[in-house]
């Protein structure tokens, strides 16, 4: 058995890969342009840290020493230049970053926080305090829940159902947008008027046996019916 294994040859594999880089387009006078860079750095010192930067010198006519000076100036500001573009190959020495060609413009992704999605409108309205005489609560979008009482001379208008956990002494109008399935519930019924989808009963129509008891009102065809809640 052969103890030594023959050394295997590894092929050098090449892969193409593209990256996004910041492109600087210096303009004359170069001193003024560098001041602009300084101003940006003063606002956010870490702005260029770790970001690849390419110099596009197509708009200016720089000598070899001018290019070298510009690169040094940028390095003093902690900006490392990855490559140069738009300049004659004769102007680039081996100590400078390589000459790049074939760059394509691209849209930089803005790293803004995403706007929270608009919450769907609440379909119910909760009132934690009593509804006083003379107050009118109109909520066409859905149900209204009142934790206190609804005073005599107050009114609640709801697109959906109305729930009153205190005494209902005022007017309650449910299902105002044509919702005939809406109902009115209350812990104690002393209402002046109950209406569902436009059909109504006044206090006179409400049976005395129901008074001061938990009750609900619903629509049966075109008649408002009231029954005790037990």
């Amino acid at each position, binding site marked *: 058995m052969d103890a030594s294994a023959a050394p295997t040859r590894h092929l050098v594999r090449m892969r193409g890969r593209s990256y996004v880089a910041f492109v600087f387009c210096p303009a004359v006078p170069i001193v003024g342009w560098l001041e602009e860079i300084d101003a940006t750095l003063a606002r956010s010192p870490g702005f260029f840290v770790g970001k690849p930067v390419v110099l596009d010198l197509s708009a200016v006519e720089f000598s070899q020493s001018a290019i070298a000076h510009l690169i040094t100036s940028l390095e003093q500001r902690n900006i490392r230049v990855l490559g140069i573009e738009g300049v004659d190959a004769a102007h680039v020495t081996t100590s400078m970053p390589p000459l790049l060609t074939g760059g394509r413009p691209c849209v930089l992704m803005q790293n803004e926080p995403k706007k929270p999605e608009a919450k769907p409108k609440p379909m119910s309205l909760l009132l934690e305090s009593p*509804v006083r005489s003379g107050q009118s609560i109109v909520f066409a979008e859905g149900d209204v829940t009142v934790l206190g009482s609804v005073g005599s001379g107050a009114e609640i208008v709801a697109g959906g159902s109305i729930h009153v956990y205190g005494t209902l002494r005022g007017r309650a109008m449910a299902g105002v947008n044509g919702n005939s399935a809406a109902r009115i519930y209350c812990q104690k019924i002393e209402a002046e008027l109950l209406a569902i989808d436009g059909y109504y009963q006044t206090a006179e129509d409400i049976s005395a046996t129901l008074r001061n008891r938990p009750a609900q009102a619903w629509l049966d065809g075109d008649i408002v019916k009231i029954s005790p809640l037990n």
Partner: protein
Amino acid sequence: MAKVLVVTSGKGGVGKTTSTAALGAGLAQMGEKVVVVDFDVGLRNLDLVMGAERRVVFDLINVVQGVAKLSQALIRDKRLENLWLLPASQTRDKDALTDEGVGRIIADLRTKFDWILCDSPAGIERGATLAMRYADEAVIVTNPEVSSVRDSDRIIGMLDSKTVKAERGERVEKHVLITRYDSARAARGEMLSIEDILEILATPLLGIIPESQDVLRASNVGSPVTLNNAASAPARAYVDAVRRLMGETVTMMVPVERKGLMNRLLGRRAA
């Protein structure tokens, strides 16, 4: 820290002015520096109940319009040296009051007094809304009858929405004062019960003032009932209410039927 307290009701004739005078005098008797301000421009009465009607020279409207200084319009009570009155004008109407004018006067009074009691006119219009506008606390005067209670409910709603405090998202501290409580009629079930009133208004009770001839008698002689006859039942009820306003805990006494008490007294005397 000065407190602005509005005495209000919505309905007329329930005892706002009587209560303002009685509470103001009661607070002054406890050593507080008090001013009672009449907001009932055109139908002023507080000066009469306070017995100061013959000493009025300048009034609230004069001060609002800059005709007179506040110190010229304030009238010091003859019986209590730390009780003052700012009277209303009888010849003008409520349109003469302006929001900023009232605000300026209230701010000025805050620097000079411990308590500023605003006697609100009846109704829910300009006079009443301006009287409550800058209030920190409110006493809602209610009679034990449905019309008065419903109007009080309306006023409480306005206190929760139309005052400066409410607009800032704070709360005006509210108290219900039940006046003209007739124990005999209550016993016969002819009046709303205390429980019913408090259930409807859902607001803490400050006191129950019994119906009494002493109130009328005191008004006629131009004296707050707490000063005129301190031993009378309404005076004692007002003093209890004042102590509750000052933050004390005082047991609530529901006035008992008068006749029974008298009979008992007479019976004892006969024995």
